[in-house]
């Protein structure tokens, strides 16, 4: 195991964060440990959240804001999910806007903030004068819904998909007669058709199901005819598994985190973090990183990334590196990536595709041909980073693996954004919903959302993309510090899932400092969380998230006062959920949010229609109302 950034350290008062920032800091500490970055618990002089020190007198501050407009007001995981449309996207196929049930925004913000300071430090080492980077929870959250927002605001046939748009029952995952929830996966209509024929479903219904099934990755809904769910509900899982294997459809049970912790590769993946680094070459001969481009304020300006990626995870990683200033050369097949034409369109390109791939220089290359391979190698010779997400084994088959490329460029960072990591014990396709089911993330989301399985929001593709870009940034920093010459960086969806559940997995794997509630019993939730949740109002939904006693006390006082004004009997000085819900139905969500804001109660209107996001002044600096509503860079550099 290579600990990449030993001797670097973070400083800041991170041991006692506010309850709202506790999950973010827990993830940050976990990531720092895995990178070999130590922790010094002191206040930063500038008031920044933390600073990354990479060499003597070379450090960069990280400012963490709650809101994109940097105005101080209550924020938390739940409020960030509510106000940025994450609950809305998750709610499309889960019966209504609701929290994901995982600390998603906090984890993603931890990844991006650490990536931001690492990138700024690279800039410093290359001669830039960057002193600090700023990121916020809401900017990170918006980044995660960027492609859905593009779809909802595209000029041509925008998608209008509101929470509750699709059935909760008639969608994957499916459930067998013996009560096993499971996901199916295939990207090919023929195995799908053969599978359903074997199950006894007619071709027309299977075809309708295929249309719905294909919508999952793009639209976060997967409406399938009820006959499909009913046909599987009368078969035992073992038989369904057999039929899937016979017809070439992948199948994965929705496993618990306890199941995942039992896997042979779980401990190593948890310890290493979501990246695996492999360093080679004689450091003495390493070419220093190119100096910073003085004309750009961005820390990776002047560096070149060559990307050969499809779909979401890999392209998002390239997009993030581009937002840090790198020139990204995107290799597409002759004729261009077919997803460029996927509606809804923003002029001549798919809005969703553009959200993930804009600002990249496209080169159409047939990478399977000898001439194409030579063209790729010519690009690699001049590049700093190569990034791909090909199917396992493809790189070696095409002669474009790490060893092949480092022969033409021994100073290359070679990054793979894969599905499962190197030691997978199965042959499942590396796609988001398979990884959610396998990793325990789906089970965790299911428990919180009242579903049999995970989210149809691409939870792991987005986090996996951020983790891949972060791994590349860490590797570039190691290169800038002269710690390595060529570096291979492997990241995966499963690694992203491990990061998302790092605390619970740490406990299940009996790691020191992680409390195992499975052994000593779950502690009762604190009383001040008893009213947290999403409530209906006279118009719209309201999210409440009290994370300490003071906030809870403010909430109960505000509700008691409002109830008295509205002449509602709460039955008690401390309302329970039922009475609170009854009271909240007397006013609109907007009105309650305004009242609670004045009282300092952590509350927010749940955004249900994504087109409303661009009208929220709190989010304005993170969004750009162009031909569609674009999400800006999650980082600012000073």
């Amino acid at each position, binding site marked *: 195991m290579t600990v990449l950034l030993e001797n670097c350290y973070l400083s800041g008062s991170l041991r006692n964060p506010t309850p709202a920032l506790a999950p973010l800091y827990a993830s940050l500490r976990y990531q720092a440990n895995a990178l070999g970055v130590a922790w010094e618990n002191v206040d930063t002089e500038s008031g920044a959240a933390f600073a990354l020190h990479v060499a003597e007198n070379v450090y960069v501050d990280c400012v963490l804001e709650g809101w994109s407009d940097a105005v101080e007001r209550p924020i938390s995981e739940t409020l960030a999910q509510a106000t940025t449309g994450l609950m809305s996207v998750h709610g499309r196929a889960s019966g209504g806007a609701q929290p994901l049930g995982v600390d998603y925004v906090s984890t993603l913000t931890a990844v991006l903030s650490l990536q931001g300071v690492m990138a700024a430090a690279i800039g410093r080492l290359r001669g830039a004068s960057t002193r600090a980077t700023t990121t916020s929870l809401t900017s990170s959250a918006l980044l995660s819904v960027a492609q859905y927002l593009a779809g909802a605001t595209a000029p041509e046939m925008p998608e209008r998909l509101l929470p509750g748009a699709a059935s909760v029952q008639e969608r994957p995952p499916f459930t067998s007669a013996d009560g096993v929830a499971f996901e199916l996966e295939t990207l090919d209509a023929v195995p799908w058709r053969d599978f359903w024929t074997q199950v006894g479903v007619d071709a027309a219904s299977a075809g309708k199901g295929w249309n719905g099934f294909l919508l999952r990755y793009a639209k976060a809904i997967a409406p399938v005819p009820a006959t499909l769910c009913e046909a599987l509900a009368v078969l035992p899982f073992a038989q369904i598994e057999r039929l899937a294997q016979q017809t070439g459809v992948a199948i994965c049970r929705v496993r618990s985190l306890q199941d995942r912790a039992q896997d042979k590769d779980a401990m190593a993946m948890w310890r290493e973090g979501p990246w695996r680094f492999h360093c080679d070459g004689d450091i003495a001969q390493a070419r220093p990183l190119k100096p910073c481009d003085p004309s750009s304020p961005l820390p990776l300006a002047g560096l070149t990334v060559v990307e050969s990626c499809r*779909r979401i995870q890999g392209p998002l990683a390239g997009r993030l590196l581009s937002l840090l200033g790198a020139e990204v050369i995107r290799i597409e097949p002759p004729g261009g990536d077919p997803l460029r034409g996927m509606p809804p369109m923003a002029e001549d390109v798919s809005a969703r595709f553009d959200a993930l791939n804009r600002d990249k220089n496209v080169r159409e290359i047939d990478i399977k041909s000898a001439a194409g391979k030579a063209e790729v190698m010519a690009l690699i010779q001049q590049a700093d980073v190569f990034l791909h997400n090909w199917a396992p084994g493809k790189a070696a088959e095409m002669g474009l693996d790490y060893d092949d490329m480092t022969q033409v460029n021994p100073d290359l960072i070679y990054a793979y954004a894969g599905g499962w990591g190197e030691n997978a014990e199965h042959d499942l396709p590396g796609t988001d919903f398979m990884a959610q089911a396998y990793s325990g993330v789906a089970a965790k989301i299911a428990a919180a959302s009242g579903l049999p399985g995970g989210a149809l929001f691409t939870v792991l593709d987005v986090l996996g993309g951020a983790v891949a870009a972060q791994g590349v940034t860490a590797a570039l920093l190691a290169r800038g510090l002269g710690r390595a010459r060529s570096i291979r960086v492997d990241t995966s969806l499963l690694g992203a899932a491990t990061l998302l559940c790092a605390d619970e997995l740490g406990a299940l794997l009996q790691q020191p400092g992680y409390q195992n509630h499975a052994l000593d019993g779950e502690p009762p939730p604190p009383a001040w969380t008893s009213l947290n949740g999403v409530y209906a109002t006279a118009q719209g939904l309201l999210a409440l998230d009290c994370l300490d006693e003071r906030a809870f006390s403010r909430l109960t006082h505000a509700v008691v006062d409002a109830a008295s004004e509205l002449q509602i009997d709460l039955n008690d000085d401390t309302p329970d959920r039922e009475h609170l819900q009854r009271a909240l139905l007397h006013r609109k969500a907007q009105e309650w949010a305004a009242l609670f804001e004045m009282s300092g109660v952590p509350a927010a209107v749940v955004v249900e229609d994504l087109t409303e996001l661009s009208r929220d002044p709190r989010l304005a600096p993170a969004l750009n109302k162009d031909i569609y509503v674009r999400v800006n860079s999650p980082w600012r550099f000073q």
Partner: protein
Amino acid sequence: MREVIENMEIQFPGVKERLMADGKVHRFLNIYVNDDDIRFAENLDTSVQAGDAITILPAVAGGCGDRLR
């Protein structure tokens, strides 16, 4: 549907290669006639009437490449 593609090829040379190979539609491409995927009907022999809507869409997925390919 086969005839439609042949006619498209005359008007837009090269399009056929983008849609099919060896007489079959590419695996990760979906062709719909009035919202019905032709693979669940008569495939390239699916009949097309005047006024029918034909949609050609690539499969969208997440994650990395499919090992089953």
